C-alpha cells in the first residue's frame, strides 16, 4: 500500500522537485503533503498520517531543528522517520540531527538517485530500475 509523505521546505521549488523526484524514482508514494515551515508541518501532522518526512533545516518561523525537537517531545510523532534534505555541511549539526532521531541526510544539491536511495527503505519502490547509489553526500544514520 502506498505511503504518505510530508515535505517540509520553505522553498516551493524544492518541494516540487522532491515530489517530482519521488515520482520519477518509482517510489511507492501515496499522498504527498507539503509545509513551508515547522509550524505548518505540525498542523499537517495533526490532520494526516505519514510514513516519513523530508525536512529542510533552514526555514523561517520554525526551523528543522526546532521541528525535530517538538516532534521528539510528542509520543505520537517521535517515531516518524525523518530524512533531512539541507545545504548544511557542519558535522556537529548533522550529528545533532542524528541525535534527534533523523533517519538519514541528503545534502543539497542532491541527485534524484541519492534521494531515492535514502527513501527507498522507508517507502519501497514500484519500479526498482536504476537504483544505483550515487554515494556522495548521502548518509543513512
Amino acid at each position, binding site marked *: 500500500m502506498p505511503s504518505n509523505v510530508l515535505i517540509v521546505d*520553505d*522553498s*516551493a*521549488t*524544492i518541494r*516540487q*522537485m522532491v515530489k*517530482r523526484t519521488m515520482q520519477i524514482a518509482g517510489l511507492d508514494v501515496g499522498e504527498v503533503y507539503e509545509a513551508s515551515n515547522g509550524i505548518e508541518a505540525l498542523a499537517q501532522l495533526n490532520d494526516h498520517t505519514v510514513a516519513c518526512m523530508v525536512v529542510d533545516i*533552514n*526555514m*523561517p518561523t520554525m526551523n528543522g531543528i526546532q521541528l525535530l525537537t517538538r516532534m521528539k517531545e510528542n509520543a505520537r510523532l517521535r517515531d516518524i522517520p525523518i530524512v533531512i534534505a*539541507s*545545504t*548544511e*555541511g*557542519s*558535522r*556537529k*549539526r548533522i550529528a545533532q540531527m542524528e541525535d534527534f532521531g533523523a533517519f538519514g541526510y541528503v*545534502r*543539497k*544539491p542532491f*541527485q534524484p538517485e541519492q534521494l531515492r536511495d535514502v527513501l527507498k527503505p522507508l517507502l519501497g519502490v514500484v519500479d526498482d530500475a536504476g537504483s544505483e547509489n550515487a554515494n556522495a553526500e548521502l548518509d543513512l544514520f
Partner: protein
Amino acid sequence: MQDQKTPTLNSIFSEVLQNLAFMFHDEDEAEIAPGEVWLETVIRYRGPQDGTLRLRCTRDFAVLLAANLLGTDPESADSLGRAGDAVKEFMNILCGQYVTARHGVEDVFDLTIPEIEELTETPDFTPGPEEEAAGVSVQGHRVQVLYRPQA
C-alpha cells in the same frame, strides 16, 4: 589567505549551478540588454566567522533557473511564478556549500533566509575592495555573485 587547493567562489558557483540546475557558466561577458529587470538576492551566514553573499541577475535568468529546477517550460506559469523562490533557494544552497568549502565542516554556521529585491537600475558590476566576485555569463545571461567577509 586561501591556499590554491581551496575551492574558489567561482568553482563552487559553477558546481552548484551544474548540479542543481544543469546550467553552465562561462567567462565571456554576456551583453546587457536595455530595459532588463535586475534582481539582487542576499544571504548572510553567522558563526565563528561571518560573511555575505549577493547574487545579481536579471528576471529572465531567474525564470530560466526556475524552469530548469522544475523541468518546466520557461514560458510556463510555474517558471514565471517561482523565479524569485528559485533564486533564493539557489543562494541558500550556494551559501551552504561555500561556507563549508571556506571554513570547513567542524564549526556550526547559521544561514539567514535569503532576501530578494528588484533593483531600480542596472547594477555596477565592479566588486568592492573586500569582495570576491564570481560568474559572468550563464547561457547568455549576465550573472554575478559577490562574497564579502565580515569582521
